[in-house]
C-alpha cells in the first residue's frame, strides 16, 4: 500500500508540483472563505461576527420558502433559463448553418463579427433601446400593424413578458454560439462531405447526417456550462425590463433577492438563497455530466 503510494508519487510528482501554486491560491481564496456559508444558518450581526452571531437553524430558509411568491420565482427562473438555453442554441446553430452556406470567406467573417456585437452592449443600455422598440407605438408594433395584428404589450403583458425576455436574450447572445458552432463546422474533415456527395447526398442530407452530429459534443459542453447557471436567469436583463405588473411571470430568484436587500440588507437570507442555488446547480450539472458521459461518452471535466 505504502509502496504503491510511493511509486505513484515518484511518477506523479511533476504533476503535483505544477498544480501546487494554483491549488494553494484556490485553497486560500476559494476554500478559505467557504465558512461564510454558515451565515445562512445565522442571524448575522457583523459586530458579533461569524463566531458570535446567533444560530437560527433553518429559520432563514423557512422564512423564504414560506413565501408563495418566492416559490413562483423559482418556477419562473427555471422556465426562463431553460427556454433561453433552448432558443439560444437553436438560433446559434441555425445561423451558423446559414453562414456555412455562404462561400465568400470575407463576407462570412464580417457577418460573424457583426452578430457578435450585441454581446458587448450592456443590458442597461439595451433595455433603453428595447423599451422604445417594444412600446405600444414602437417600431415592432407598427410592423405588426402592417400585417393587421393587434398591438402587443411586450413589456406589460404578463403572458408575453417571459417570451420577451427569452427572445431578446436570444437575439443579444446568439452571436457567441454562432462563432463557436461555425468554427466547429469549418473544422469538419472535408473528406466526410466528399464521400457523402459520392453517395449522392444533397446539401440537406449532408447537414443532417454530417454537420449536425459533429456539432453535438460542443453543444453538450455549452449546455452543461449553461446549466450550471440555470438558476441565474439573467439579473441585469430582467431588472432593467420588468415592472410590478409582470412580477407573477417575470420575477426571478435574483431580482426577488435584490428587492429583499433594498429593505433591510438581509445578508443571511441572501446567503441562504445562494446556498440553495449552489446545491441545485450541483445536482443539475452532475446529472447532465453523467448523462453526457453515459450516453455519448463525452467528458467535459
Amino acid at each position: 500500500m505504502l509502496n504503491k503510494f510511493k511509486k505513484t508519487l515518484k511518477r506523479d510528482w511533476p504533476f503535483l508540483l505544477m498544480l501546487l501554486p494554483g491549488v494553494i491560491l484556490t485553497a486560500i481564496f476559494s476554500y478559505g472563505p467557504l465558512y461564510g456559508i454558515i451565515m445562512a444558518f445565522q442571524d448575522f450581526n457583523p459586530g458579533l461576527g461569524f463566531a458570535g452571531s446567533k444560530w437560527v437553524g433553518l429559520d432563514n430558509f423557512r422564512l423564504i420558502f414560506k413565501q408563495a411568491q418566492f416559490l413562483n420565482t423559482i418556477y419562473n427562473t427555471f422556465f426562463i433559463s431553460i427556454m433561453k438555453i433552448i432558443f439560444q442554441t437553436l438560433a446559434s446553430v441555425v445561423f451558423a448553418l446559414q453562414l456555412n452556406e455562404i462561400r465568400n470567406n470575407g463576407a462570412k467573417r464580417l457577418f460573424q463579427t457583426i452578430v457578435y456585437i450585441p454581446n458587448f452592449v450592456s443590458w442597461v443600455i439595451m433595455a433603453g433601446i428595447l423599451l422604445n422598440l417594444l412600446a405600444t407605438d414602437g417600431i415592432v408594433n407598427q410592423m405588426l400593424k402592417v400585417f393587421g395584428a393587434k398591438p402587443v404589450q411586450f413589456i406589460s403583458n404578463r403572458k408575453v413578458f417571459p417570451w420577451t425576455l427569452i427572445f431578446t436574450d436570444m437575439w443579444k447572445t446568439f452571436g457567441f454560439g454562432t462563432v463557436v458552432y461555425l468554427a466547429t463546422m469549418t473544422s469538419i474533415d472535408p473528406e466526410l462531405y466528399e464521400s457523402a456527395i459520392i453517395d449522392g447526398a444533397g446539401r440537406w442530407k449532408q447537414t443532417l447526417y454530417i454537420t449536425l452530429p459533429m456539432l453535438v459534443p460542443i453543444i453538450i459542453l455549452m449546455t452543461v456550462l449553461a446549466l450550471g447557471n440555470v438558476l441565474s436567469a439573467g439579473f441585469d436583463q430582467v431588472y432593467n425590463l420588468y415592472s410590478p405588473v409582470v412580477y407573477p411571470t417575470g420575477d426571478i430568484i435574483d431580482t426577488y433577492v435584490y428587492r429583499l436587500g433594498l429593505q433591510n440588507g438581509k445578508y443571511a437570507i441572501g446567503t441562504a438563497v445562494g446556498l440553495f442555488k449552489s446545491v441545485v446547480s450541483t445536482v443539475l450539472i452532475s446529472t447532465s455530466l453523467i448523462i453526457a458521459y453515459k450516453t455519448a461518452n463525452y467528458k467535459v471535466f
Partner: protein
Amino acid sequence: MSKKWLSLLIALAMMLTVFSALADFTPVPVGSTGNGTREYVEPPEGDWKTPYSEIVNIRTVKGQGADVVFEAGESQSNNEWTRAWYNDLGIEVTYDWIDEGNTQYTQKLNMTISTGNLPDVFRVNYIQFRQLMKAGLIQDLTEVYNKYTSQRIRDYEKTDPDTIKLTTIDGKIYGIPIYYYGVIDNPRYMWVRKDWYEEEGSPEIKTVEEFEKLAKTIVEKHCSYAISVDNTLDYLFMTGPMFNVYLGQPSQGNYFWYKDDTGRIKAGIAHPEFKTALEYWAKWYQDGILSPDFMNYDYNGMNEELVTGRAAFQPFYQWQGWLNGPNLVAAQNSNDAYMIPLQFPTVDGSQVLGQVGFPNADVIVVSKDCKNPAAAMKLLSYTDYIMFDPNTVLTDEQFKGFTDGQREHVPGAFEILDPQADMIQFEHVLKAIKTGDTSELFTSGMKKKYSDSISWINEKNTGGLGAFCQQGFDGCSYDLAKYLLDNDYVKRTDMWGPTPEAFDETVNTMDIISTGVSEIVMGIRPVEDYDQILADWYAAGGQIMEDAVNEEYNK
C-alpha cells in the same frame, strides 16, 4: 525661581509643542496610520474650539461622491479641512478607507465591522446601529456630547427633539443623528409645463375635477396624455395626498404610516380612501390622463415623455428643475418650456397636506476603543461652525477652500447638518433675488443657489433652472413647502424613526400591493378586488409590520 516664572516657562513650552506640532503637518495617505497620538489626552479646558495641546489622531472612514474635486496639489488627506482640524483643533484625521462614488459604503462598513478593526468615528444606518449596540462595540457619548459639542448642535434638539431619542438608550446617547437639510425638502408637488399652464391663464387648481379638466384641455391642444409616471409606481403613489391618502415608495419597499381614528397606526395603503385613489387612477388610465404605456417606462422613460413634450404633468420632489429643466428647454427650444410646481388639488377642494417622512438617515457613532471621543465632538462642531453658523466669518479664500468643488462633503463622518438649513437658505436666497442685496448670503449653499438662480433669470443659463425652480420665485417648490410648514398643513409619518426589527420577519410584502395596484390601474382587475389584495398583504407580513410599528411607535 518664582512660581510666576515657572508657569510662564511651562506655558511657553506648551506653546512650543503646539507650534512645532503645527509646523509639521504631514498628510497621511488614505489607508495608512497617522502620526498623532491615539492615547487618551485630557481635553483642553474652555469651549469646544480650544485645540488639544498634543496632536490627537482620529481614524475614520467615509463614502463620498465622485464629484468632489481638490485644488492642485491637494488630496483627501491634505486640504482646507484636514489642515483646519489639525491647526485649529489639534486633531489629525486619517482615513482607513474612502469609498468614492459612495456605492459600497454600507457594504464595506459591514465588512470592516466584521474584521473587528473599527475606525474611531463613523457613520452608520439604523440597522447597523442596532447591530453595533447588540455587540457592545460603540461607546456612551452622553458626557462628551454635553461637554464638547457646540451649543448650536445641542440646539438642534429644539428643532427636532425626537430624532436623537432614537439613539438614546436607557438615557445614554450612543449616536448623534446627522440630521438633514430640513423637512422643507419633503413635500411633493404636481409639476406642470409652465408655457402650457400659462396659456390656460394659470388657473388655480383646487379640486381633482378642476385638475382633470385642465389636464384634458392641455392634452387636446398639445400632447399625447397628461401625467408621466414610471413603472415602479413611486411617482403615481406621490399623488396620494389628492385623495387624502399618504403612501411610501414601492420600489424601496417602504410605507407611509398614519394613525387611524381608533389610534392605531396603519400603512397608507390600508387607508379606506386608497380605493378612491385606485378608482381615479384606473379612470385616468382609461381617459388618457395616464399613458397606456406607463408600465413600459422606467425612470429615464418617464422623463423622456416629458422632454419630448408628450406629457404635461409629473408628480415629483422639489428638485424636479434639475432633472428635466435643462433638457426640456433645449429639446423644446423655448425658454418657457420648463416645469413649475403646483400644490396637489384634492377631491373635495380642501387644503392638501404636505407629506413628511422620517428624514434622518444616518447616525454618527464612536467605537468603544476610541480613547478620545471628545475629539469627535469637536470635529462635528467644527463642520457646523464652518457650514451653518451665521456668525462665522471666513475669508473668501477660506470659503473657497472649504466649499468649492463639493468639498463641503469632505468631512464625511463629521458632516452634521442643520435641520433648519434649507429653510433659512431659502429665505435668504429668495430675499436676495428680490432685493439684489447679496450681503446676507453667508453659507456656500446660499451663494450657490443664488448665483444659479440669477444665471437662469439673467442669462437663461439652463444649468440654473434647478435652483430657480426650487428657490427662485414666488410659487417655487420651497415657497409652496414653506406655506405648508408655516401653517402646519403637514402630514408627518407616525413611524418617526427606523423600521422596527420585526420587519426582518417579512419579505417583499410590497410586491403584492404593487402588482395588484398596477393590475387595477390597467383595468385588468376591478377596484373591488383591492380588499382581497389588502387581505393578502396582511397575511403575507403586513400584519407583522403593523403590529411591530404599533408596538414601537404607539406607546
